[in-house]
């Protein structure tokens, strides 16, 4: 499978925070969930991908091109949605259509209006009067109306009600029906993502903890539940992270590593994240 995004040894240092040696790639036709706690480096990575800030070292290629050398060309084919309002308060969707027409070569009026209709957005109302959900839908309509091949969303779906999230999810799934398209979505809300994402990349304190197909994560990891006494008998090397209580232990393990008759529950992506971090701090 060809990669639409490839990031190699990417680093960026700030005072008090640094992104270190980030590596991952997003294949064509896939959805990648980019997860991590607040301040883990998600937005920094996205800004670097979009060439909004300068990297210290490493390589970023998008559509097979270096992102800083072919900045303009690449951005024609990317749809971007940031958190919050992305447009001037006093603009109406009709105004936005006019502006965007001049920005993107491939802007398609009809497509934009069809999304507005689909999302029930008023044409003449100013953005200031839009609700959060409406704003987000407007941004997504813009991102999808210039024949983008890659959709990048930074915390875009957090804080939306379940009904709006569901509508948006449907739009994403439609978008991905074309095998040339990919979606990169950063978030800390995992519920929706868990269902549709093909890959999960987990960043923690500026470092990538893992970047794997979601199915591998879900099938390979499990939550071991056992008594404190049993836990002592298990080789600690295979324990990724654990939570002890007076009445027993829960621990994240790779299923293949644990031989014997134990109770192992399915681990959610959230469990895997939490226990990884827990394991690190012990």
């Amino acid at each position, binding site marked *: 499978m060809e990669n639409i995004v490839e990031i190699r040894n990417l680093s960026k240092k700030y005072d008090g925070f640094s992104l270190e040696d980030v590596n991952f790639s997003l294949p064509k*036709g896939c959805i990648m969930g980019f997860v991590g706690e607040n301040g883990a480096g998600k937005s920094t990575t996205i800004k670097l991908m979009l060439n909004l800030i300068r990297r210290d070292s490493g390589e970023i290629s998008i559509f097979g091109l270096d992102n800083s050398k072919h900045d303009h060309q690449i951005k024609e084919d990317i749809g971007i949605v940031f958190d919050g309002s992305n447009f001037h308060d006093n603009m109406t969707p009709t105004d936005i259509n006019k502006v965007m027409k001049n920005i993107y070569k491939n802007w398609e009026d009809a497509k934009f209006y069809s999304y507005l209709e689909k999302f029930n957005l008023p044409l003449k109302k100013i953005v200031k009067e839009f609700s959060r959900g409406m704003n987000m839908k407007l941004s997504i309509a813009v991102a999808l109306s210039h024949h983008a091949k890659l959709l990048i969303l930074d915390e875009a779906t957090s804080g939306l009600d379940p009904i709006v999230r569901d509508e948006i999810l449907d739009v994403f799934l439609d978008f991905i029906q074309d095998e040339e398209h990919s979606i990169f979505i950063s978030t800390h809300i995992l519920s929706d993502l868990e269902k549709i994402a093909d890959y999960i990349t987990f960043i923690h304190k500026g470092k990538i903890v893992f970047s794997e197909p979601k199915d591998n994560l*879900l099938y390979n990891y499990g939550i071991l539940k056992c008594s404190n006494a049993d836990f002592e008998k298990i080789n600690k090397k295979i324990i990724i992270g654990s939570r002890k209580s007076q009445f027993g232990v829960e621990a994240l393990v790779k299923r293949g590593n644990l031989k014997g008759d134990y109770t192992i529950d399915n681990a959610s992506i959230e469990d895997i994240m939490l226990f990884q971090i827990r394991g690190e701090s012990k």
Partner: protein
Amino acid sequence: MDIIISNASGKPIYEQITSQIKNLILTGELKEGDALPSMRLLAKELRISVITTKRAYGDLEREGFVESVTGKGSFVSCKKEDFIREEHLRITETYLQKAIDTAKVSGIPLDELIEMITLLYKGDE
């Protein structure tokens, strides 16, 4: 054609898909040459990852239930009786193993177990 995915089921999603498609083939609801939905469409409709549907279709293909034609999609391959029999044999074996394991816990002897199976088997007729 219906495929129901349950999150409460302990089975991985790709297995839920393969076993349900197999059942549809076994019961004749899906016939030889019938087209299966595209992997992307199935993923979209069920709201699961494309990788999951790919894996399910890959497994079905390997086991001979489905044939993929590049650029055209996946189709139910000619129904092979022995395939179906083997599949059923495998399922029966799994259940029997469970029954035996349970029996062993309470020390139920083999002849009693055989007697029980014979009785149940004949009771159906």
